[in-house]
């Protein structure tokens, strides 16, 4: 490990998740952040697309959000394991962990079942994108409403819409992620 002149240590470089994470990272109920059957459940879903507009079938998305009461404390138990069989038990059905992980399917589609985030300001779900070919993950946000917001207001009109999920029937929100090209999603950095 190397220290630089300011006493900070230098970061470990990122690498691509590669094509073969599929038997390691996804877990049952990764997409079911809301306790099953919860009446307030919402669905965030969409496609992940490449620079030619083709769906990406080997992306994996992670989601992090505030609980409905605004808490950012999260909770353990997203990938609760079974100490007897070594398999997954699934979430405990009551705690809200705020964390979801979903691999895209063969059509490049994902769906996340969660509760409305109660963060200050406009509600949003933070999204982290991994894929083969992506050497360093990408952050974006799925806003569940439009309105005054320091980040959205800083964007040119044409790009703002890429961060606002479109409400549909039965409490669904459509949020496509375009990695490149026309309608390219706004990706974020946190300096």
């Amino acid at each position, binding site marked *: *490990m*190397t*220290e630089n002149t300011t006493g900070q*240590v*230098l*970061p*470990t*470089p*990122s*690498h*691509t*998740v*590669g*094509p*073969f*994470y*599929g*038997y*390691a*990272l996804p877990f049952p109920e990764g997409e079911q952040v809301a306790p099953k059957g919860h009446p307030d459940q919402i669905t965030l879903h969409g496609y992940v697309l*490449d*620079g*030619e507009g083709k769906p990406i079938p080997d992306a994996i998305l992670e989601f*992090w*959000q*505030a609980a409905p009461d605004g808490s950012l404390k*999260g909770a*353990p*138990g*997203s990938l609760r*394991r079974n*100490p007897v069989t*070594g398999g997954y038990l699934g979430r*405990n059905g009551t705690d809200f*962990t705020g964390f979801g992980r979903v691999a895209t399917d063969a059509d490049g589609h994902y769906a996340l079942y969660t509760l409305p985030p109660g963060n*200050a*300001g406009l509600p*949003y779900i*933070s999204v*982290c994108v991994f894929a*083969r*070919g*992506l*050497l360093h*993950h990408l*952050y974006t946000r799925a806003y569940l409403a439009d309105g005054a917001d*320091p980040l959205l207001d800083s*964007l040119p009109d044409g*790009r703002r819409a890429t961060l606002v999920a479109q409400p549909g029937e039965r409490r669904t929100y459509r949020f496509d992620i375009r*990695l*490149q*090209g026309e309608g*390219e*999603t*706004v*990706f*974020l*950095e*946190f*300096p």
Partner: protein
Amino acid sequence: MTLTQSDIDVEINDAQNAYDKAVAGGAPVQHHPPRDYAPYRSSVLRHPKQPLVAVNSGDPETVELSGPVFGPTDITEIDNDLTVQHQGEPLGERITVSGRLLDREGRPVRGQLIELWQANASGRYAHLRDQHPAPLDPNFTGVGRTLTDDQGRYFFRTIKPGAYPWRNHTNAWRPAHIHFSMFGTAFTQRLVTQMYFPNDPLFPYDPILRSVTDESARNRLVAQYNHDLSQPEFSLGYEWDIVLDGPSATWIEEGR
């Protein structure tokens, strides 16, 4: 047209020279690979062309400055020993991999989830889409997870993975590596990367490793052999510290 290793070598060297020249001219050191790195062909249509938009991370209400938490329910006791997850012993060279998970201030990151996955000793993943004609090992899956301890330490026992071919270009081979996934105290500290083994002759040819154009950053992806971690008559030891990048709310609380 078939793309050969020497075609890729030219591109790798051009990118390397351009980076070295820029740094010599005063440009900042890049710790991470660029997202658009043409020698790694899969990156061509999968990187954004617009610059990233900076979020004011001085605001403690920024959701990404906190992150998911994990606990003892998220792992089982043998999840960090990849050699005991089946009825029999896996084939290959037993190793231990251990080190510390740190933030940019060098402080331990405690109680956080580390996941790893890897090919078996023959260079084959237990993944249906991996059709490399090397044998699967019924006693090895190649997936592990653990939580870091109070010193930020982690420990895995596994098998040294084999190199494997891939289709980036003709005769493309990945140096032996273990995939790692880490969480910090903030979502902004998320890291997925790969750990390599010292002195692998495939390093210069691999567009994925070479995408990290800064040589000292590249060296930080290579574990060190540590004889004290080797266990007599049993396994060889490798040490690898991991440093998470990115801000977290704790930095703000401490007036950073």
